[in-house]
């Protein structure tokens, strides 16, 4: 386990694209950064995506260089599978507790995956959103960084087979949690977002009807390291040929506590539709939408491209989904073009789930309050001219922690956060040492 320093210039909470970008910018300026990620590897949600709109370059190609740059930077200490808690604002800077949880595998692991071969337990793979199994000892996913295995102790039968086969003897069941008190001059919250849980909308039958999946599950099916040998529907492995997307699932819907637009679903659905038409040339893809929000650079053109490829766009709000005996689904919707309620049969339904605030940041601080906006995102106290500032001096926000946004906006927001944090650090250090350049 990496031994933390006693002091860092900046603590960055969250190792997704925004956290990495912030950490890299600060580290390149010579500041020492602690990057804390609660998951087993850095990369956030972006590293799990297939191709990204509107350029259709693959997400892995874009993130992996950034991930390795972050992991390897001499000024960044990356703490994966670790959590931050009890942050206290002090006269100068912050003190906090770092909890490094045991993965029961040491850094000697070479990522050879022999342990995975011999482990006899299969549980749902969270990185494939439950579509497929993984072992109780596992490397999170094929491009995970660090590429070190971890044991999911809740599902381990303590058979010890992994320990028998591990070539560099990196398995250590006796590993324990390490708790360290650390200080940092500035804090950047890059805690990201949560995906909307569609089981809340019972009418759509997610969790009950096997062939109703989330867009994230579809995203994984479109990645080169996908769970199945092709895009298949989960009920029986059939190659789907008539796929529906239900947009605004958990967005623009005050009844489920999510009144705002999630800003990315229209475009990722449009992208998936294009990728599906490539993967399954015979398939029909229909998007049920309210408004198509193709607002960003190249988005409108991308949307037009999907239409010209033959993706169906139906302006209509989906009311309910029914399952037939053969696993097919009946989508009932109000067709705004005709003003009537209509029904269409599909063999796979994808819910374009929205994004929700990750409220975890609200529990981090002990003696100060990082205020939130009406939707529970981190409040930007000077939204127009200092978008990264929060209600606490010295605490900055980067990426989707302050609201829904796409990848380019997250990266720009992270750029702003690093800029403001760097200015803040210089100001603080100048107070101590006025001669500082």
């Amino acid at each position: 386990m990496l031994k933390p320093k006693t002091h860092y210039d900046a603590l960055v909470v969250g190792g997704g694209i925004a956290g990495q970008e912030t950490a890299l910018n600060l580290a390149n300026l010579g500041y020492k950064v602690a990057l804390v990620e609660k998951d087993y590897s850095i990369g956030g949600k972006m590293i799990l995506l297939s191709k990204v709109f509107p350029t259709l370059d693959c997400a892995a190609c874009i993130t992996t260089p950034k991930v390795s740059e972050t992991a390897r930077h001499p000024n960044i200490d990356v703490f994966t599978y670790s959590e931050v808690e009890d942050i206290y604002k002090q006269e100068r800077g912050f003190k906090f507790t770092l909890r490094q949880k045991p993965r029961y595998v040491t850094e000697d692991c070479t990522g050879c995956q022999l342990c995975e071969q011999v482990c006899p337990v299969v549980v749902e793979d969270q990185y494939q959103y439950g579509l497929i199994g993984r072992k109780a000892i596992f490397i999170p996913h094929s491009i995970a960084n660090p590429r070190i295995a971890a044991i999911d102790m809740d599902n381990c039968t303590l058979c010890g087979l992994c320990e028998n086969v591990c070539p560099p003897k990196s398995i250590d069941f006796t590993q324990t949690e390490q708790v360290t008190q650390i200080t940092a001059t500035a804090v950047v919250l890059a805690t990201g977002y949560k995906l909307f849980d569609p089981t809340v909308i019972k009418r759509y039958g997610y969790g009950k009807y096997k062939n109703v999946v989330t867009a994230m599950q579809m995203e994984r099916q479109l990645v080169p390291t996908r769970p199945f040998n092709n895009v298949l529907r989960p009920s029986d492995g059939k190659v789907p040929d008539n796929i529906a997307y239900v947009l605004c699932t958990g967005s623009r819907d005050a009844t489920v506590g999510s009144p705002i637009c999630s800003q990315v679903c229209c475009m990722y659905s449009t992208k998936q539709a294009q990728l599906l038409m490539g993967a399954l040339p015979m398939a029909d893809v229909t998007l049920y939408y309210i408004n198509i929000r193709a607002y960003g650079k190249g988005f409108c053109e991308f949307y037009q491209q999907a239409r010209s490829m033959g993706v169906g766009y139906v302006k209509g709000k989906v009311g309910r989904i029914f399952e037939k005996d053969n696993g097919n689904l009946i989508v009932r919707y109000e067709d705004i073009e005709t003003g009537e309620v209509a029904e269409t049969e599909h063999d796979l339904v994808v819910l374009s789930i929205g994004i929700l605030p990750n409220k975890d940041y609200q529990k981090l601080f002990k003696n100060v309050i990082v205020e939130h906006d009406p939707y529970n995102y981190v409040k930007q106290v000077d939204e127009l001219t200092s978008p990264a500032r929060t209600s606490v001096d010295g605490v900055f926000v980067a990426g989707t922690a302050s609201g829904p946004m796409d990848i380019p906006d997250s990266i720009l927001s992270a750029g702003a956060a690093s800029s403001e944090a760097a200015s803040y650090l210089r100001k603080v250090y100048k107070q101590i040492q006025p001669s500082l350049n």
Partner: protein
Amino acid sequence: MKIGVYICHCGSNIADYVNIEQVKKAIQEQGEAFLVKDVMFACADSSQKEMVQDIKTQKLDAIVVASCSPKLHLPTFRGVARRGGLNPYNYVQVNIREQCSWAHSDDKKGATAKAIRLIQAGIEKAKNSEPLEPIKIDAVNAVAIVGAGVAGLRAAIELADMGTYVYLIEREYFVGGRITQWDKLFTTNQSGREIITKLYNQLISYKNITLFTGAEIVHTSGSVGNMQIKVRVKPRYVDTTCAFDKEKFEKAIEVCPVEVEDEFNFGLTKRKAIFKNYPGEFPELPAIDYDNCTKCGECQKVCDGIDLDQKPEYLNLNVGAILLATGFDPYEPSEGEYGYGKVPNVITLQQFKRLMELCPEQLVYKGRKIRSIAYIYCVGSRQQNGPNHYCSRYCCTAAMHTALLVKEKYKDIRNFHFTRGIRTYGKQEHIYHEALEQGDVVFQSFNDPLCQVSAHNGTAIVKINDFLTRGKPIELEADLVVLITGMVPRKDNSIGQLLKVPVGRDHFFNEIHLKLRPVETVIDGVFISGASQGPKNIMEAVNSALAAAAKANNLVKKGFISIEPTVAFVDTQQCQWCDKCSEICPFDAFEKIEQDGKQVASVITSLCKGCGMCLPVCPENAIELHNYTDRQIESMIDDLVHV
């Protein structure tokens, strides 16, 4: 040349499929290596120490590690080389895991034979390797920011805060850019001027920011880290030392007899030839619009601060980087587009924003009290027949927000929105909801034909095929039609042309990569921000300005820039200067120089990215790339096929 070779077992990952003993023997027998060792884990601390020790005690000239992909451990072993006292480029990594043992786990014999060849080729490469040092270029810790709108001002303050000297160069006589023209802004309802006042006051407190107004960059030379820029500062024709004699200047404006159309109010009002856009504008000093001034001398009679003999000044500045924050132009509808210029009472959103500010009590246009307003969306954006296919992003929210302000400010006004699908993305959704809640009517054209505007008894008629009526046309009479115009690139792109900044399909400045390098351009040291790279709202423009500030500061702060030494070089004996290399180079890294009485190509190493595109096009084979020389590549090929 003494070469040390280390063959990694990677536990069993390599050793299970590649017969390490056999490989080791083959390499030893071949006799090219001075020392051949096998190690359980080359990356382990103990192995690294052993290698450092070997380099020192055995006086090795180069090392080869055959293990995993260089993507994983190239920097690790370059570090080993450095710690042993070797140049990191005298190190070669051979990938016998991902591209050998794992790829051929079904063919152990084949994998072993391949490993031997790969390592032999690696040894060849190491034999022909040359020590390389990163190229260091001195960098001036100063940045020129072009444009003092909200993005430029914010970037300037942030860069100054981070310890970089800033030259802020504004083409107009006044700072603030577009947002000084808007009153209340979404989503905070702050006024544009309030923001600019705050930023300007902050700006002038910095010793490391120099602001030039009425200024333009007219010439640049040099390259990243050290750029020479020539700035022309237009005269203001007023004596800047009398800045605080405000009253005299007010008087001068009053007596000026010349009236011209006021661009600040988009032609809704007139201004004088000596002018300020609004009271208290920054800098708080009027300017004379020389082209329209009749030199009548009236102002000079009341104010001794006028000096019509001022001449343009030229300044030569030295900067490490340039940050463009040149903003946008609002789309100007063509005559007749939705009745613009033909039907009375058709104005653009920007005119309407100014009109609202000029009408504190009642909303009156051309003498007519306004009771109903039709907002027509996507004017100049998402064009079906025009060149602008893109969505302008800010306008749906801006229109809805304006509609809210209208109802808040004036009584009894009805708002009708003629849209093509509302795109109030993200949190801006609540503005759309508020507009609906206050009773605004929103139409959406069915299957996307555009609505039509015609004149009718002094009012305007808007016709739309609406969604809810399944495409049946609806007609509506409105006292005022507001065209919700999008953003277009600045008409005058002289700065972009001067710096050779490429533009995208939409003609805005283009970044290298929307996600990886969103504020960098292919011109090293030139950054872009704000609406100059595409439509953005204020928060987004400021985010990109601050991001660009971070990148620019990162680049120049250290005082030097290091670049990879894998750059191209020219054999001037062979070169006949045919220009092919400079034609194909995406980075303009070739220059023509004179050497020994003939013209030859020379690589500007500070511009070369080491892509090697010039290598195959040279008819004389006079160009090579460090670390990928003909000798290295061809000797590797020899050894790969060697039996």
